[in-house]
């Protein structure tokens, strides 16, 4: 795992790796007269797990959706590796291959089995032969603990199982960064853990992750950096310890009182 060695060198006080995996520079986004994002800048380094927290309407999800251009920023620049997301000439499909996304409402394809959900995009986008795609999909299903559910339709799966299939589906594209948009918010409490466990394992394997979530347990266990957003701005960021124990800003303190 390259990034682990690189992180070990972080005492040099230089960012690990040469280039951030995701580089967000001065991004703003307006929906009509509402300003959802104001001049947001953020770096996500390879292997880093960044948790984004903040009150609802603070622009967390919008920021995430700008990274794979499900929303188009009004101004500013976003780079994923060496590709500029905000450049209209960039083939957005290439970036979407590199940035896997997991949604709050799972969004599994309802007409396809768990296995077919995972093999669809690799077959269409990566032109993988069916057998190969299925082989990979089975390995991924085993990885999220659902090897016996490959023939199940989404309607036959619990919320937690659906979300795990959705994670496997995103992983099948071999993304360089995973974007999690409130992955456990739509789940019953007893199913949250099974999804977080999968995410934790991913983080341990060195996946670069941007996670919008208020799961503090996950933050402490896996996050390298926690970003607090409010009203479309990044108020402050730091390691989970720094931010949760000694927040500098009053707004952060007030928000943390509500959720801790």
């Amino acid at each position, binding site marked *: 795992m390259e990034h682990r060695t690189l992180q070990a060198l972080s005492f040099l006080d230089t960012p690990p790796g040469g280039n951030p995996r995701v580089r967000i520079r001065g991004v703003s986004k307006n929906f009509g007269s509402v300003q959802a994002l104001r001049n947001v800048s953020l770096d996500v380094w390879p292997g880093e797990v960044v948790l984004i927290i903040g009150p609802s309407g603070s622009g967390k999800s919008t920021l995430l959706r700008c990274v794979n251009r499900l929303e188009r920023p009004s101004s500013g620049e976003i780079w994923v590796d060496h590709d500029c997301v905000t450049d209209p000439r960039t083939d957005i499909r290439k970036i979407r291959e590199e*940035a896997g996304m997991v*949604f709050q*409402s799972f969004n*599994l394809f*309802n007409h396809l089995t768990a296995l077919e959900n995972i093999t669809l995009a690799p077959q269409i986008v990566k032109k993988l032969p069916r057998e190969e795609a299925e082989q990979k999909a089975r390995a991924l299903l085993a990885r999220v603990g659902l090897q016996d559910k490959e023939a199940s339709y989404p309607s036959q799966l619990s919320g937690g199982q659906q979300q795990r299939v959705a994670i496997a589906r995103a992983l099948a594209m071999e993304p360089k960064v995973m974007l999690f948009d409130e992955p456990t918010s739509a789940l019953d409490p007893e199913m949250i853990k099974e999804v977080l466990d999968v995410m934790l394992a991913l983080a341990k394997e060195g996946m670069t992750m941007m996670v919008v979530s208020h799961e503090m347990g996950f933050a402490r266990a896996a996050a390298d950096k926690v970003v607090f957003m409010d009203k479309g701005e990044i108020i402050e960021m730091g390691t989970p310890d720094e931010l949760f124990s000694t927040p500098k800003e009053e707004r952060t303190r007030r928000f943390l009182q509500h959720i801790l």
Partner: protein
Amino acid sequence: MAEEKPKIEITDSTLIPERGSGTIFSAWKISFFGALLLLVLLPLLMPEPYWDILKFVPDGVLVTFEVTLLSIALALVIGLLTGLGQISRITFVNRLATVYVEVIRGIPLLVQLFYIYFALGKVLRLQGIPAAVIAMAVCYGAYMGEIFRAGIQAIPKGQMEAALALGLSRTQALWRVILPQTIKIILPPIGNEFIALLKDSSLVSILAIADLLRRGREYASTTFRYFESYTMVALVYLVLTLFLSRLVGIMEEHLHRKGR
């Protein structure tokens, strides 16, 4: 228990009786088998003139089927294109499709038939059946377009987003994710359009096409057996449409039971 509990009168609050379908004497069974019985008994008991009438029925039904099937096939293609046009982001395409639907739905089918066959006859020089098929397909294509549009829009937005996030193009997402789910939703209404079209195909008899109604009319005008002729024609239409509506019903139940 000596004490008797006060009886709770259970009244059915719905004053309108439900459509009984499971009983032996459901409305459908009475109509369908009644019509079928008459269709068999009349020629057997009164061979003159019913047997003579029955002889032209297969020819007429074949022409009716021919016109109906050709029209529905073409209408499905027009309907799909129209439905896609109505959700298109290209303003011109969108307007074109919407105007087509508005205009066609505002003109009676009979007038459209006259228009294509007589008013445009000098330009188009169409034979009876092609003219009839085009007029019916253009007319029903508009209604089908509305069904396709509603069906596509009934698919949750997250399905398209998930497909795009995996790197599929909009077109790929539409064909591989959205439309397969749409078809299950729109099959029953499409089936109903099919039945309506079968009935409306009797209108083409005014274009000198030898469909079922035309054959009946010809027989009646030579023998003056109006009552007998039109009774048989009506019974044949009834058996056909009732049979088809049952098929649509079964299909609907099947889709319902399969869940998604």
